[in-house]
């Protein structure tokens, strides 16, 4: 039985829901620790299973292997950090600013929906057939619509939800059309069988083009990214953080399933298209991020460009470990930055880039953490973002896409420009008067500490990458049929 982590999460979700129903409001604060505990146990369970080795459940309906394990670790980490980041808002600890409505209500329901969504992502990477894949994708998506619109008294939140659901449903329809084509072309719903049966005809291309919409929507690839800025801006900030990491990781999981298992045979044939997609994505994301003034929108575009780097890993079958590794890195790194954003927004109600002026004077440690996070996103050594990006670039280079490496590397520079804009506000610009140091809550501090340590450790300790490398062999083997011939 390899399904324990999922079960633990589901149980936790129901426990939280039960507490919501049966506990008096004042004791519902306990939901947060319960949630954290459940997620931690699930995390431990995943790690335990990874040590145990690969296996399947229900006759192979549910597959657990190293890659699935790492994905689940990412999801759970993202979930844990999101729970920590949202704790202050749910506890009502934030500065009330006229004209802004930032209250987050219904703690129990919130956690339940987040956890269900998390379970969807976890099942997604373990699915072995198309039906399961589709249903898990929906579970990993639909609750997010609700989460984005969660702050029902905030018009922006509702608007974001409106946009998100319209585009999400559209993309889901298109992806379904594509999945149907794949089903029709292969005559099977088993992912592996489908992979064996598929050939690279025009209809397959059409199917790929359609599933790319779904993948692109979740991963925010250009031109499927346009929802991101508005939704990040409107959504409650912890939800935006969650969107930027967990949802993206789910998108990557979906893409792994599709591109390695179903389309493994034709992976090399689509590499050029993917390369162009990656190039356009990172370039557009970066260029637009340059002119943003609001940190949320800014992070949205930053996340878009990160997705562009991420899919460079598909250019060569050997890229799987790089992508899994980068996803892990990206989750913790982005959570570092979002942690600081949440902290600052909660405590001061400020969310423009210029509002960060003088942070290094009032809160030097927070500023340092923020700077490290931004540098890691920009790919500055020795932080893990650098190592991750380096491996991804290496994949593209190996596949012969030197131009893409150049584009990506120049993009890193552009991204450094806008990351440095925040650093500049924090370190160089004079502060807004003599602000006293801002006290950070325990949950924020914990979140920041955990993610920062992970961010640094991931880049320096080779264990993580090496383990991932060992464990991705079977995925590459599935995809490597044509790859082996091409070399």
């Amino acid at each position: 039985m390899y399904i324990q982590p999922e079960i633990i999460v589901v149980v936790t979700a129901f426990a939280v829901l039960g507490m919501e129903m049966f506990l008096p409001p004042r004791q519902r604060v306990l939901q947060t620790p319960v949630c954290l505990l459940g997620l931690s146990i699930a995390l431990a369970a995943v790690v335990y299973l990874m040590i145990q080795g690969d296996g399947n459940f229900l006759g192979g309906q549910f597959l657990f292997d190293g890659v699935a394990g790492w994905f689940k670790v990412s999801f759970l980490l993202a979930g844990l950090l999101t729970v920590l980041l949202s704790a202050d808002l749910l506890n009502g600890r934030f500065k009330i600013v006229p004209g802004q409505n930032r209250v987050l209500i219904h703690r129990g329901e919130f956690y339940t929906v987040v956890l269900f969504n998390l379970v969807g992502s976890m099942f997604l990477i373990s699915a072995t057939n198309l039906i399961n894949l589709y249903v898990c994708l929906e579970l990993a998506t639909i609750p997010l619509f609700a989460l984005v619109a969660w702050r029902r008294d905030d018009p922006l939140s509702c608007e974001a939800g409106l946009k998100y659901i319209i585009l999400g449903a559209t993309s889901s329809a298109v992806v379904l059309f594509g999945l149907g084509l794949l089903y029709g072309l292969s005559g099977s719903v088993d992912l592996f069988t489908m992979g064996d049966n598929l050939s690279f005809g025009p209809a397959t291309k059409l199917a790929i083009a359609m599933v790319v919409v779904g993948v692109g929507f979740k991963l925010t690839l250009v031109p499927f990214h346009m929802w991101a800025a508005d939704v990040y801006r409107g959504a409650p900030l912890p939800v935006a953080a969650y969107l930027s990491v967990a949802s993206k990781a789910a998108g990557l999981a979906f893409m792994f399933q599709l591109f390695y298992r179903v389309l493994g045979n034709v992976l090399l044939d689509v590499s050029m298209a993917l390369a162009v997609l990656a190039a356009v994505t990172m370039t557009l994301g970066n260029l637009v991020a340059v002119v943003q003034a609001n940190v949320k929108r800014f992070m949205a575009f930053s996340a878009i460009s990160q997705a562009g780097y991420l899919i460079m890993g598909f250019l060569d079958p050997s890229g799987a470990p790089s992508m899994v590794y980068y996803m892990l890195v990206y989750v913790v790194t982005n959570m570092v930055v979002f942690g600081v954003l949440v902290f600052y927004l909660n405590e001061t109600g400020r969310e423009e880039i210029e509002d960060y002026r003088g942070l290094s004077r009032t809160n030097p440690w927070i500023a340092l953490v923020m700077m490290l996070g931004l540098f890691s996103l920009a790919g500055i050594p020795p932080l893990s973002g650098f190592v991750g990006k380096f491996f991804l670039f290496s994949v593209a280079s190996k596949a012969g896409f030197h131009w893409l490496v150049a584009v990506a590397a120049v993009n890193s520079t552009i991204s450094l420009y806008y990351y440095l804009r925040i650093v500049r506000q924090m370190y160089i610009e004079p502060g807004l008067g003599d602000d006293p140091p801002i006290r950070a809550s325990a949950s924020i501090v914990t979140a920041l500490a955990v993610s920062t340590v992970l961010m640094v450790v991931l880049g320096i300790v080779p264990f993580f990458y090496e383990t991932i490398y060992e464990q991705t062999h079977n995925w590459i083997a599935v995809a490597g049929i044509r790859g082996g011939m091409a070399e």
Partner: protein
Amino acid sequence: MTGFLFENAWMIPALPLISILLIGLFATGSNARFAGIIGSVAIGTAFLLTCGLGLAYLSSAEAGASAVTWSIEWLRYQDHLVVSLGTLIDPISLLLLFVVTSVSLLVHVYSIGYMAGDEGYSRYFVFLSLFTFSMLGLVLAPNLLQMYVFWELVGVSSFLLIGFYYTLPEAIAASKKAFIVTRFADLFFLAGILVLGFFVHQWIVDAEWGGVTAAAVQSASAVQALDFATINSEPVLAHLKDQPGVLGLDLLTVAMLLVFIGAAGKSAMFPLHVWLPDAMAGPTPVSALIHAATMVVAGVYLVARLFPGFAASGDALDVVAAVGCITCLFSALIACTQTDIKRVLAFSTLSQIGYMMLALGVASAEHPAGLGAAMFHLFTHAFFKALLFLGAGSVIHAVHSNDVAEMGGLRKKMPLTHATFLIATIAIAGVPPLAGFFSKDEILGAALDGEHHLIFGVGLFVAALTAFYMFRVYILTFLGGHKSDGAAKAHESPPIMTIPLVVLGVMSVCGGWIAVSQFVLPGVELHAHLLVMGLSVAAAVVGIGSAFWLYGGQANRAQTMAESMGGIYRLVQNKFYIDEVYLFVTKMIFRFIAAPAAWFDRHVVDAVMNLSATVVRWVGARLNVLQTGQVQTYGIWMINGTILVLLFLWLVQR
């Protein structure tokens, strides 16, 4: 003892170096007064060592022998291109050593009095010692690169000393000018070194590869491309002569001409002479030492060092002769019109160095007499010109003015100065039996022997001019009545200043009796030309006579004469406007190269870099407009994306 002196010849330049350290460490602030003494003692010791070395050489070595007595590896470029610091002992280096140490000693001593009370006293002696050190290193150089190294160092010490009065704008300007003009010339010297280094090195390597060991030059592995011994060796010169150079010249000529430009810069040959007159802004003893006796003759020394090369080239030697000729005539003419006593002396120096160059130019491999004559003149000139400068210094010290128009009648006031100045004047005028007569005579003789009749004629004319302008100065300064209060109040300088004058006076009288030419060129027959002697004496007499005729009596005779010459006089008085030409060229460089370069950098290169940033931001802003907030537009883009991906997959890829 002899061996010891040879092997430790490095101590001669080392002594001034030590003196720099000692002065720098101990003779600062309140102890500054010891600086002069330390410097003088050090250079005095060096002088004694030089004398010992000379005696040892005369007694032990065979005549004309040349040897590197000491060397250490200094700069290793690559095999056969290793530069050593060493001491090359041969007649001309010994000659120069003697000149440098002796004049330097006297100038040091003189300066103790001249500079007394100056706030930069110890700094002055540091610079002076630095110069002496560099000049000695230059003289002893056994290879071209060491020569260049010390060449630059004398340049910089000259720069420092010219700009010694650093608050005076003209001194600063003069020092910069001196440095930059000589630097410009050094550029060619360096280019010459590069050319010689490469081709000689190539020859050595080829010789090795071809089985011909480099023993053809010297003992095998130690052959270094930049050693004078290598460059001056027959096979190398022959090889260079065979190689094509540029502009139809052979390589040897090209290399020698490049080196000669360097030499011309340092020796202030036309048209690179412009810095020397201005250099008189420095303290007068400095002018005596650097800009009369020693540094400015480094160019002559360099040509003498590479004389086999010049001789083998032939064409290069003709250029040397021509340049020398033009310079000596040209500056002698200018000297006749100047009123600043130091400037007159400066132009006189130019003219005399031109004489030396001319002498070198008329020499050849078969008739090397000119080489000896040049060295001889270098030797004698050092003393009488140093004497003239020191005497002028003494006068300036007393009168507080450089202008001869403010002097006059100092004969009585400063008898010792007057006497020594007169001796030097006679010596430079070429009146027998003083030093100048012999050396000048030898040069003219060499010119005649080499059948360079035109050059001979010019030389003779310049001899007359020299006598004329020197006596003009003498008359204006010492004879007649006082022309200013300063002159009226002048009095004789202290003994510390006059003793060097006397010593130099003695040398100016006796210098000509030393057989320098035979020392330099042993075995070369020199025969006295009675004709030449007679002509040169006549020239001197004519010159002196006209000086007395023009300036001895009523002053307006010279005035009238000058007025009658009109434009020509003004042309000469303004030094043929060469300075103005340079100024113009420099301004052009500033305006049309430097300023555009700076502008280009800011407004084109940098602007392009900034433009890229602007473009990024502009494109970002344009793309940002796509974020209209219209959800349906977003949807349209999504489906557009699908269609594009499909078309890409379908049409672009296979």
